[in-house]
């Protein structure tokens, strides 16, 4: 009986978790593609320096179209090197400037992945934007 109760509690707890934090929609962007299509609308990025500079500091703006971006998390890694950036970027938002990630530095040449957790009014998305830095 107690085992049954624990299982029931677990099922209920899982259901509650799903209500609170629904599964994100996972999207992998096209290589070097600055935009992805969401369930509703699109999300695209634009670097302060085009193309992304190698081993220099830069910022990136995220713009949602056809939906409203209400929360953003950002990280970037080099999967082949098993490390990320040498900086801790800062995310800012203002009504006139929108969403920005400042203090990025892709310090080595090669394949990077920018990982973005984006919350819009319609849903939650985990998006990978593959980018290549430096000469190919």
């Amino acid at each position, binding site marked *: 009986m107690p085992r049954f109760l624990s299982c029931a509690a677990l099922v209920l707890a899982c259901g509650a978790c799903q209500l609170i934090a629904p599964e994100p929609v996972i999207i992998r962007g096209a290589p070097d593609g600055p935009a992805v299509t969401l369930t509703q609308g699109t999300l695209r990025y634009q670097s302060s320096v085009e193309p992304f500079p190698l081993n220099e500091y830069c910022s990136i703006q995220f713009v949602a179209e056809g939906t409203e971006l209400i929360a953003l998390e950002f990280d970037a890694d080099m999967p082949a090197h098993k490390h990320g950036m040498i900086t801790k970027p800062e995310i800012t938002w203002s009504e006139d400037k929108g969403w920005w990630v400042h*203090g990025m530095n892709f310090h*080595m040449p090669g394949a990077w992945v920018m990982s973005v957790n984006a919350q819009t009014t319609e849903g939650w998305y985990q998006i990978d934007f593959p980018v290549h830095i430096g000469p*190919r």
Partner: protein
Amino acid sequence: MWLSLAFALFVAPMQAQEEERPYFDQREQALLRLLTKLPQTPPPSPSNRFADDPRAARFGQILFFDPGLSPSGTVSCATCHDPEKGWSDGRPTSLGVSLGRRNAPTLLGAAEQRWFFWDGRADSLWSQALGPVENPVEMAGSRTDMVRYVAETPDLRKAYEELFGAMPEGLDDRKRFPDGARPRPPAPTGMFHDVSDLSMPTEGLPAYKAWASMSAEDQEAINQAFAYCGKAIAAFERKLVIQPAPFDRFAASVLTPGAEGADKDAISIAAQRGLELFMGKASCHNCHFTPLMSDREFHNVGHEVGVDEDFDHGRPDGIQKLRLDPFNGMGPYSDAPDLETNVKLRYLFYDSHTYGAYKTPTLRNLGRTAPYMHDGRFDTIEEVVFFYQQLPGQPPIGHREETLTRPRMTLQERKDLAAFLRTLDSPPLPEELRRAPD
């Protein structure tokens, strides 16, 4: 018949040699562009408003070569950064008043660096210049003694005051400005401390007590004068610009044939093959890019330590020390302490991946700056190349940079790579920069 023989003996071998000349494809040419075109003026140094003042550079040059900055009167900046030894010292680890634990890097092109010291514990050339003065194994001095030395040496005092204004008053009052007075260096805490910091509280206690006995105004006056001296030394060091090397003339022949100085024979065919390896199978370019041949950042290449050696955490200690340093770019002695200017400090990340990581050294003038690595463990370029081929053992802390992949190179290929690395030696700087000014 004679004609055939002559062809076989002279023309055919020359053709064969021509055929062996490597071809640099589009990708390699793009990489070459990253490696060459040396800047002949250093980047701006906003935290040092005297950085490009010729009077500051001259004063800094005097200080750089003056052993009087050390209380023993035997150690100057040039002791470990000897112009005749590639602005290094030719020793595995430096010998100031006693033996240090790290190799003295060359100062050629130092102004191009982003961070200073092997662990990057300084963020400007001028704040770096202050470190050795109070390091117990380098000059083993103090900021108070150094400022007093400048004040009591008429030529130095005159040069200082022309630039920075009056020196602090009352320096001859030993009660007010005690001999050897210096603050306790801000030591990293917790598990990431540097072992050398453990001895500091007792070892330097009289000097720290002497500093604590001074008024806040006098401490501030000494700090300001000390910072000015560092800024002058940096103004001189900014003149130590890397001159184009044979590699640069060769690279120009690939990228812009016919350009002034371009020379496809500036480096041997073996060195050209070595360059191809550098950007290809050996993947040296992953960390050694930019014209400085360094990404100016930090990597753990996985050196083992012997049983009697101390752990040296490298970059994590450097980050902690940098943040605590009042002479960093956002500190009260910086000429541009704002957040917008100090991007590299603002977004600096204390990252577990950097345990055991040291700054990627410049490869420029490698032939003149043996021995190699942060602890000078390798005497020759060939040994360094062999290390990267073998990657023996495991690092004592952290993990080895994953991009290092044990390239399988033949003996000939290792020789070619070493031959290329020797083409990065540039001509010496003018004689007037290699000594104290008249």
